[in-house]
């Protein structure tokens, strides 16, 4: 009996091993197909198709799972021939969208099978390593000043407590020693707190010291308060959408100008309108981070535009603009022009602030925006701050059309030629109108 059970067990084991191995090899060959199919999909199909949601073309995972493989191959190679031949299924499929699909006669049957295998298998799940690495770099750096102030206060309070406790202990010990020596001590009369303070304030030295402390504290508080009045450095209001500059300008390396196009051609840097968001977020929905659901933050863009991601249509009546909170704000009597600084003054500012060649000129005043998960005001934007930079910065005149014009006008003045206010920018609207 025992032998039989042993043999059965052995057979069972080998069968199991065989099964496991075959599964492994099968999945390995399939993985090969899927990897190859994924590459082909990305190169050829992805500009119009996504796996799980409709875009220009239908979602491919359900479509290719449902379709007969032979039909799918014929369709992908040349769908028009199928339609022209009067294939009912093909005519039905061609009605999905007015945008015509590109024919792919170059793809071989094997390649198309790989694409189908990839579409059926879906996107392989990524490991969490990448996500963890991305999240680790947040925090730190900011809030140092607040933290250090709180630390100093805590240390002061702690040392006072320690001193008081030690003083009490010493007194107790002294009394004990004296008692042991047989000295009879009169019971210490307990003094009420109010009584004690009253006595303290009768002491002239203490009152003087107290008033001195009061003047120093009040004075420095008032002084600091006055200097920081209207200075918004570090202002970091929470925004209606948790837009991360760290992700967009840092990880994704999108240039500042892509969204803030106005900064290089006008006074204002301009907050991008939501259509600029949609250039990418029509397809980027971060579904992999939200279990296949659209990221709630990206959904807010869709809500603002009245956009329905399922049908990919806009409903104008549902539009509700995003109310961003303004961070950088100059008082109305100060005129600041972005383009004057980012275009005319770019070289000079780069040199003065020591920016690296790969850093945008914007960093000079806005700080390392590509590390700010939530945007905050980096520079004080005070008059003193402006003036100091204008005093120190050396202008880069060479090869700068702006200064060429000034030099040209000055040459004319030297020669005694006719100069009109228009030559000196006298036709700029802003010279007279606010």
């Amino acid at each position: 009996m025992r032998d039989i059970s042993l043999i059965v067990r052995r057979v069972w084991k080998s069968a199991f091993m065989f099964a496991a191995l075959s599964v492994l090899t099968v999945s390995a060959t399939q993985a090969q197909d899927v990897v190859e199919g994924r590459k082909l999909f990305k190169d050829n199909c992805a500009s119009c198709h996504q796996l799980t949601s409709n875009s220009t073309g239908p979602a491919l995972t359900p479509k290719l799972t449902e379709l007969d493989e032979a039909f799918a191959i014929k369709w992908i190679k040349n769908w028009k021939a199928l339609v022209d031949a009067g294939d009912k299924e093909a005519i039905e499929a061609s009605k999905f969208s007015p945008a015509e699909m590109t024919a792919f006669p170059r793809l071989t049957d094997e390649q198309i099978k790989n694409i189908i295998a990839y579409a059926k298998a879906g996107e392989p799940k990524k490991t969490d390593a990448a996500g963890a690495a991305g999240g680790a770099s947040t925090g730190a750096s900011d809030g140092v000043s607040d933290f250090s102030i709180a630390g100093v206060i805590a240390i002061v309070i702690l040392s006072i407590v320690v001193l008081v406790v030690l003083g009490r202990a010493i007194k107790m010990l002294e009394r004990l020693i004296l008692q042991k020596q047989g000295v009879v001590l009169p019971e210490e009369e307990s003094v009420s707190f109010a009584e004690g303070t009253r006595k303290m304030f009768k002491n002239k030295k203490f009152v003087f010291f107290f008033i001195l402390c009061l003047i120093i504290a009040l004075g420095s508080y008032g002084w600091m308060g006055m200097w920081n009045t209207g200075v918004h450095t570090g202002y970091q209001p929470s925004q209606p959408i948790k837009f991360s500059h760290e992700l967009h300008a840092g990880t994704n390396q999108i240039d500042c100008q892509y969204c803030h196009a106005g900064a290089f051609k006008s006074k204002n840097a301009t907050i991008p309108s939501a259509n600029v968001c949609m250039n990418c977020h029509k397809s980027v929905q971060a579904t992999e981070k939200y279990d296949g659901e659209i990221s709630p933050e990206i959904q807010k863009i869709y809500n603002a535009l009245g956009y329905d991601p399922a049908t990919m249509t806009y409903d104008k009546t549902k539009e509700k603009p995003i109310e961003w909170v303004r961070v950088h704000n100059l008082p109305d009597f100060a005129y600041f022009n972005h383009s004057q600084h980012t275009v005319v003054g770019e070289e000079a500012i780069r040199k003065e602030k020591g920016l690296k060649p790969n850093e945008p000129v914007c960093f000079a005043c806005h700080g390392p925006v590509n590390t700010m998960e939530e945007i905050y005001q980096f520079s004080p934007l005070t008059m003193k701050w402006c003036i100091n930079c204008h005093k120190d910065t050396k202008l880069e005149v060479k090869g700068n059309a702006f200064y060429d014009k000034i030099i040209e006008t000055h040459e004319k003045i030297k020669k005694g030629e006719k100069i009109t206010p228009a030559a000196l920018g006298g036709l700029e609207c802003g010279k007279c109108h606010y």
Partner: protein
Amino acid sequence: MKGSMLAMNKNKVVLASFCILASAVVFSACRDKESTGLEYARNMYDPLAYNPDQPNKNFANGQTAQTPPAHTAPVGFVEDDIYPNTKEGYEAAGVNLVNTMPLTEENLLKGQHLYVVMCGPCHGEKGDGQGHLVKIEKFSGVPSFHDPEKASSRGGLMKDLTAGKIYHTIKYGVNMMGSYASQLSPDERWKVVLYVQELQKAK
């Protein structure tokens, strides 16, 4: 009331004021990031003339920045709307629209800069469809401009696209690409077209 206040123990007044001061110092030490801090004359920041981002009760939707009325254009802005965003409009633009932007080094450099900023994230700085966003797999299926075999989704090869077709695509977008009409003025678009046509010649 006042008499009784004065009659109160002086020491108590001093003590109370000290406590208030101490708490004020402690509270002011932790600055609130959500607040702009102490401000003098806030109305200087919210001018009567309305900044574009200020709320405005004079308009029904409460915004200062209003959508411009239909059929209006800023001074100096020339835009032809004769080629609509349809297949026919695209084909017609491809045949009839000519790039009048002169092919100078300055225009080409400007076009290159705008291309790298606006198009480079996906199309790649060399026009090979391998921009940073493609490499990190945020986007895929971006065609190369100079691949000898790469077909456009609207017919023809990518490297044979005419200036008019490229302009039409920048203005209206196609497939997953959005419209760049709000980010690039017509002149800027033509400069980008100049540069893209250079990329088409690359090997």
